[in-house]
């Protein structure tokens, strides 16, 4: 009797494991990978935890900004880099006006919001014209806007938009220098409430960016609340099925557009948080990989193109950035070349997106085939 019972339990466990693996293939691959590379990097636990706190504080907000478009069924919004560009323009302006500290930080957010709203509106409008291929369009849109961003920063700033601070401007008289020092607002939010755990005379302890985490927590609460509002419900309905929700009286185009506008605004704020932690803005590269890394983090956390929640964000950011911290050293220790590790993390971030997209699309296609098969059987049996 007991044997039978345990057999049954084993079977259930097996089923559960199979189901678990098939729902979370990407995170599992990642955890397996980390099990091998973390020891190979020879980093101390203290160092890893410290780095991890910094990176979670730095990146979570950016990743969170991807949630709303996924809810509205538009896939991953690679055009969030547009928001990041708006944030950077705001940062350049406040640096020029030398507004420092928290007031500078919030002023930057205030400036970035109208910019993001306008750009996000444009972006949403374009994506509504490309239904069914939003993701690829949003990515191209990001590249396209990068051209405009470079034009504005390299030619318009300093000539049309006055920039007084000589340190910001290229020696030819217009255009912004390659690197902008954000000394004025550097880590002002992180250190708003200073907190260091386990500090002893020998170790520097673990620094926790309380201010930033408070902002992130507020944002998480906002998302939880937002899901319950009318607009949030509409968004989910549109994400489920556009046609049905349209016939139920939801303006699907408007809802989609709003989700993109919100995502762009949040990405702008996210980039400002990111850069206040980093402390320097590299004018022409800071935003290059923002969209890719955010998307990869989210997918590593077990999200798919159609479903994502807050826990995916944090699991993803932790796993992805652990990989990010350890891979150069692991590469050096295993292969003897740190450059390999550098390239490896770029490869992983692209590869993870590719794998997640393929698995999702493959699953959907199989589902479709199964439905078709079922329909066919139904018809033959009816005859």
């Amino acid at each position, binding site marked *: 009797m007991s044997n039978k019972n345990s057999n049954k339990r084993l079977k259930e466990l097996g089923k559960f494991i199979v189901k678990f693996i098939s729902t979370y293939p990407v995170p599992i691959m990642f955890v397996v990978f980390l099990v091998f590379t973390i020891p190979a990097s020879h980093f101390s636990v203290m160092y890893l935890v410290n780095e991890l706190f910094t990176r979670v504080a730095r990146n979570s907000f950016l990743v969170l900004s991807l949630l709303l478009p996924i809810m509205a069924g538009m896939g991953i919004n690679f055009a969030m880099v547009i928001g990041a560009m708006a944030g950077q323009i705001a940062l350049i302006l406040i640096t020029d006006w030398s507004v420092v500290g928290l007031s500078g930080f919030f002023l930057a957010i205030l400036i970035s919001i109208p910019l993001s709203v306008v750009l996000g509106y444009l972006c949403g409008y*374009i994506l509504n*014209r*490309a239904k*069914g*291929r939003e*993701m*690829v*369009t949003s*990515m*191209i*849109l990001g*590249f*396209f806007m*990068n*051209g*405009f961003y*470079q*034009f504005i920063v*390299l*030619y318009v700033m300093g000539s049309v938009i006055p920039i007084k601070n000589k340190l910001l401007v290229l020696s030819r008289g217009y255009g912004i220098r390659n690197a902008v020092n954000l000394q004025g607002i550097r880590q002002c939010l992180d250190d708003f409430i200073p907190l260091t755990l386990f500090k002893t005379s020998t170790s520097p302890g673990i620094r926790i960016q309380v201010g930033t985490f408070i902002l992130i927590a507020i944002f998480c609460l906002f998302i939880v609340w937002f899901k319950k509002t009318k607009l949030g419900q509409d968004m989910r309905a549109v994400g489920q099925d556009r046609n049905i929700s349209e016939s139920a009286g939801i303006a699907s185009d408007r809802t989609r557009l709003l989700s993109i506008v919100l995502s762009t605004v949040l990405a702008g704020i996210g980039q400002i948080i990111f850069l206040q932690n980093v402390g320097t803005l590299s004018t022409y590269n800071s935003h290059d990989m923002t969209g890719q890394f955010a998307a990869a983090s989210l997918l590593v956390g077990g999200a798919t193109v159609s479903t994502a929640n807050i826990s995916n964000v944090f699991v993803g950011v932790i796993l992805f950035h652990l990989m990010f911290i350890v891979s150069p050293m692991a590469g050096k220790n295993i*292969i003897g*070349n740190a*450059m*390999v590790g550098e*390239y*490896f993390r*770029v*490869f992983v971030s*692209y*590869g993870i*997106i*590719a794998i997640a*997209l*393929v698995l999702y*699309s*493959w699953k959907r*296609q199989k589902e479709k085939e199964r439905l078709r098969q079922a329909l066919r059987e139904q*018809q033959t049996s009816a005859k």
Partner: protein
Amino acid sequence: MKNKEQKILQDVNEEKCDVVITPKVSPIKRFIDAAGWPRIIIAIFLLVLFICAPFVKLSLSRSISDTLVRVGMNAIMVLALVPMVQSGCGLNFGLPLGFLAGILGALLSIEFKMTGLLGLFGAILMSLPFSLLFGYGYGLLLNRVKGDEMMIATYVGFSSVSLFCMLWLLLPFRSPVMVWGFAGKGLRTTISVDQFWQNTLSDILSFRIGSDFYFPTGMYIFFAIMCFFIWAFFHTKTGTAMTAVGSNPDFARASGVNVDASRTLSVVLSTVLGGIGIIIYQQSYGFIQIYNGPQYMGFPAVAAILLGGASVHKANIGNVIIGTFLFQGILTMAPSVINSALKTDMSEIFRIIISMGMILYALTRKTKVRS
């Protein structure tokens, strides 16, 4: 079931009377509709640039020559997009995969110290096993993700480029021309083909008029041969089947075409052409760019074919030729004219905005009932 049959019949009927022109429309409007606004605007702009060139002290014959050389360099890479568009796989943003195969072939030919035409065709031959293999795997992958090809293709391209970044550091190439001097291993970021096969193909039958005008005849002959192959291929039974798969997969399957095999073949063809294309590009440009070099090189090719009037569903050789000429013409002329007029270099920004703008236009164009 009946519904579906009706729909297929309807589709077929519409295919037959593809272009319905009401007699009221004036010929100018008809021309604009057929060519599309962006193409007309860009063409006029290009014409203006050519007219402006002498006024900003640019030699016109040199400008035309530069444009022609660049058209020859890029044309085969653009041609590589045709098979996949025709088979319904969309725009091949995964073209860098083919480029990587081509780069491998080129590097091997340099490693074996092959020079002249032998080196060039050796590179092409040695790229084939790689491009066939990559293309086949890539094709099998794309068959499993029907409907999402473009997005996944982009990431296949990106991730394979970054995978090869690691391989360039680790592969056992030995030739001192290619390897970093101080470390003795790991490939340089750009490798000159100067001593091996630079311009060997371009210089066949090439001629000069005056001091400025140079015409790379050999490159154009090679391009013409490639175009002929593609043209001939699409007139064989397999090629026609491929077009059928692209325009209506259900209908094609009903008439006994193996849809998946046809699509895979188109992807292989596209990858092989991509490999050949990059080698031709390198022999004219003079350098092999590796590491992140090939990552964004697929986008200008896509933009060019779209500028030539192709859509996400339909492309032909005419689109390739017109598109490459317009796109490369703009890219050559606009920066140099602006440069001479305003004394700043805006070529990079110009390239990003035009190529990405063109792709955006194609992706957001409302497809009419059957375009």
